[in-house]
């Protein structure tokens, strides 16, 4: 980690690299995040309605549950697992391939701090774009719940809107964003580490990608538990 901050290149170099990474990491993840979060919201809505059979419980509770589950868990955590699968494996694979094809050595021989040049923009790109993805995922998940709930008539549009506004705790949004920063850092740094220190050949690059995803998912879930204990 310390290697990244010793003798870095010009600031302007990093600005361009970070923007490139934001596009690669963030915008390229948009489609999968959109699909998954919309369907998760829709399924949560339908399954909550299926389980709430008591006539004593008002229907707006369905959208309240969709909202709280989305903000507290689904948007930051499930998206993180998807992010680890897509971006984590991509980062580890890219850096691993660069390592075994001597591209990392080429940077070092040129006098460029390869750890900083390769890993720092990816970590910063993740830190910038992942919280945005979480916000989008949260919005789409609630929207997915609205569409599924109203189309299948398990809840009326008015009740759904009422439910997502009822007893709203603003801190939950802050909590979701805190989680998103922590998860983004964990996924990007673990994947960079595993990719950067790959040794061997093509087989090891594949292994590095797999290990990066596995370790990132475990780290995300462990951090999820810790943050819930500490901040809620």
């Amino acid at each position: 980690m310390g290697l990244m901050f010793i003798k870095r290149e010009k600031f302007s170099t990093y600005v361009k690299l970070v923007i490139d990474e934001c596009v690669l990491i963030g915008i390229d993840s948009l489609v999968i995040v959109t699909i998954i979060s919309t369907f998760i919201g829709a399924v949560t809505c339908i399954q909550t309605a299926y389980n709430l059979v008591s006539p004593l419980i008002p229907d707006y509770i369905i959208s309240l549950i969709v909202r709280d589950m989305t903000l507290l868990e689904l948007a930051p955590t499930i998206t993180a697992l998807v992010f680890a699968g897509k971006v984590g494996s991509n980062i580890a694979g890219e850096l691993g391939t660069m390592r075994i094809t001597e591209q990392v050595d080429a940077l070092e021989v040129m006098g460029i701090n390869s750890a900083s040049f390769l890993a720092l923009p990816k970590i910063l790109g993740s830190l910038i774009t992942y919280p945005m993805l979480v916000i989008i995922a949260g919005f789409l998940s609630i929207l997915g719940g609205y569409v599924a709930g109203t189309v299948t008539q398990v809840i009326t549009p008015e009740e759904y809107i009422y439910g997502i506004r009822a007893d709203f705790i603003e801190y939950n949004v802050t909590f979701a964003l805190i989680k998103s920063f922590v998860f983004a850092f964990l996924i990007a740094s673990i994947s960079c580490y595993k990719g950067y220190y790959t040794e061997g050949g093509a087989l090891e690059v594949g292994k590095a990608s797999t290990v990066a995803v596995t370790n990132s998912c475990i780290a995300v879930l462990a951090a999820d538990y810790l943050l819930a204990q500490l901040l809620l």
Partner: protein
Amino acid sequence: MIKISNIRKSFDDKEVLFGIDGVFKPGRTNLIIGTSGTGKSVLLKCMVGLVEPDEGVVLYDDRNFTEASRNVRRDIRREIGMLFQGAALFDSKNVEKNVMFPLDMLTNMPKDEKLDRVNFVLQRVGLENVNKKMPSELSGGMKKRVGIARAIVNNSKYLYCDEPNSGLDPKTAILIDHLIKEITYEFEITTIVVTHDMNSVMEIGDYIMYLYQGKKLWEGSNDEILDARVKELQDFVYANKLMQAVKDRRDEG
């Protein structure tokens, strides 16, 4: 000039280099030769700092690279160009951006000037109209040429080539050898080539260092190598039938 003295390196308990000394002068092609697994590439990596030697010193024009601070090391490295075995071109950049990369990172040249320089070195290595091609679209020989162009684009004082002929057909291999030699003479570079290709040895070996099992057994030029009285070197030089035929002809007078 690059000077190495008493370079030793071991991995775990296995000693790979046993105190290698040598002087590599500018304006001539210096070759480090030997069989596979004899420590050539490790020596080269020790010289450029990709592997830290256990003992010994590497001097670049009397500047101690081995014991230098990070800053000094970085300054020296910026005078080094290196052609890797697989060319090590950046997959995500086209030819032009690959060659321009050292200029982007290490200089403040205006864009037009950088482009002129890139076009000049690409022309110099015999590549034109390939600026926008990606590395995956190039042949092995073209990749090596782009690698050489990237290595010299920053007016490098020192050029390392790690097995520049590996994976190339004999004709392209000779072209690459000649290119390295021409560039060395033209720009007065200190060039070090690691190879086990006898064609390269005979074509461009102004100074040759022969390594055997981590030790320097012989040094000399390509004029002297055929008459060297070192058994291990003779076994290496005359390993293939072509060289054996040369030997037979020489013996016949």
